[in-house]
């Protein structure tokens, strides 16, 4: 299919005997932004690295932009933009030199690069930091430089591995805004993340990964609808109290989760549930009603939280 930028069939990655990516299937279409959501060690980076032609596929089939990453690596990489999980900018060089040097790896001429760097710095709002050394930048600024670096070759596909991990909320919002603009310009994005709010903000479609496997696939709203009731009532208890009443909480609804300090009760009618709780003698310290999120989907599917 012409509009399928990535096709993965039975894609598997092993490190020795350890299976990091376990027989996964997915398709990414032209112009969409596609997410990989999962906890530490789920296999997100391993998958990104295979797509980015920097890690050999152990078995299965993978086609990216119609090319085989195993045999057409350089050609494929010339059309990809990559934001790696770690900040691997050259700390001793300036923002401008980092971008210029990287652009030269794509055999772009200096004059083309001069204009493009100016545009990209404008885009990531770092024009005034052009001559600053990387080591003098904040974490959020470094991430923005890496995004600019990843766009230097005007890629057909932009791969972002945890673009906002470790940033403060404000810096994350700045980045989300930039990524949203890229999406609007029609750039196909692949984003991995631990954060369900990030996935909800940015992804049209996503897969939830756990222990190398894809455990669910769909749009953020679709996944929530499919896997959990609409609302969650969070009941918080004093430390230690929960154990004794676990059974009674589980009787409140068809689906509940007991965490260390609180219980999550899933329901389509939060008001009714609250009144049942009030009428009982459970007496939680606090009650909070919120909409179900991808975090709840993940909890439901794996029994574990996303960010530990």
């Amino acid at each position, binding site marked *: 299919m012409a509009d399928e930028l990535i096709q993965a069939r039975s894609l598997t990655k092993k490190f020795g005997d350890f299976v990091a990516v376990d027989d996964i299937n997915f398709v990414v279409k032209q112009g969409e932004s596609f997410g990989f959501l999962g906890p530490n060690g789920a296999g997100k980076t391993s998958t990104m690295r295979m797509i980015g032609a920097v890690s050999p596929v152990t078995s299965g089939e993978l086609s990216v932009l119609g090319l085989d990453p195993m045999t057409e690596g350089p050609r494929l*990489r010339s059309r990809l933009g990559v934001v790696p999980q770690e900040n*691997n900018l050259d*700390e*001793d*060089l300036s923002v401008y030199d980092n971008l210029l040097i990287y652009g030269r790896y*794509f055999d772009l001429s200096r004059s083309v690069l001069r204009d493009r760097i100016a545009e990209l710095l404008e885009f990531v709002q770092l024009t005034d930091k052009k001559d600053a050394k990387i080591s003098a930048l904040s974490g959020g600024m470094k991430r923005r430089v890496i995004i600019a670096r990843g766009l230097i070759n005007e890629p057909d596909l932009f791969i972002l591995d945890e673009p906002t991990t470790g940033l403060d909320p404000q810096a994350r919002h700045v980045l989300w805004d930039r990524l949203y603009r890229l999406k609007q310009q029609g750039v196909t994005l692949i984003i991995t993340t631990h954060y369900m709010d990030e996935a909800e903000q940015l992804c049209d479609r996503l897969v939830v990964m756990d222990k190398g496997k894809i455990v669910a696939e769909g749009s953020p709203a679709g996944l929530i609808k499919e896997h959990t009731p609409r609302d969650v009532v969070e009941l918080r208890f004093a430390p230690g109290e929960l154990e004794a009443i676990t059974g009674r909480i589980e009787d409140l609804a068809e689906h509940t989760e007991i965490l260390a300090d609180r219980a999550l009760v899933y329901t389509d009618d939060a008001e009714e549930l609250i009144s049942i709780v009030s009428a009982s003698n459970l007496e939680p310290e606090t009650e909070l009603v919120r909409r179900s999120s991808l975090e709840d989907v993940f909890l439901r599917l794996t029994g574990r939280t996303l960010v530990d």
Partner: protein
Amino acid sequence: MTVPLSLRVAEAEARFYRRTWRGSVVSSFVTPILYLLAMGVGLGSLVDENLGYGLDGVSYLTFLAPGLLVATAMQTGAAEGAWKVMAGMKWRETWKARLASPIGVPSLVLGHMIWSAARVLMVSVAFAIVMTAFQIAPPLQSFLAVVPAFLVGVAMVAITTSFTVRLKSEAGLPMYFRFVVIPMFLFSGVFFPVSNLPDWLQPIALVTPMYHGVELARAIVVGIPPVVAPAISVTYLLAWIIAGTYFAVSPVRQKLKP
């Protein structure tokens, strides 16, 4: 694809070098001046007095200078292959970043070789200028002696790179300098003829790339014909360059593209 992209890698290294080029250029001139003054002039007057005629019929300074030229190239090559590679693979992570671009491992290694060769050439030429200024040899001989020095330096880049890319951590590098680079510096015929070594050590000196370079450089500057035919020595040095470069590729691929 490999050749143009490896030039892009060399260009990136050059841009990085530009930050500190002044200091580097100054030290490429100061180091040979200090060595030639201390060893050649200072120690040399003692040697010449004792022997009455100097080594190989020339002054100790003239005997020493071509050897030191090669030794300087050798040490520069070792440093490029050690610290530069460790920085690229581990400290600065620049190599990994490059591999996400169209650059592949062979272009990466070749680009590193090209830039390091340029560095070896710079220090060797600086040394030749100093040699001329000291009137140790006419300019033509001094600059011709750069050729064997360059070959030894590049061979050392290749050998050291091949070693460094196999290391798990930088802890192996000081050992490498202590047990490979420094002994090679001291015992490959720079300071005294290899024939003065104990018999059992002579064959070891003979297999070092450095010995062949020193012999060639000394033949050019002093005019004594070398023991080994020059064509064989040059071929031997080229073989080290090719083998070292070739054997650096697969560990880089294993480590940076797991």
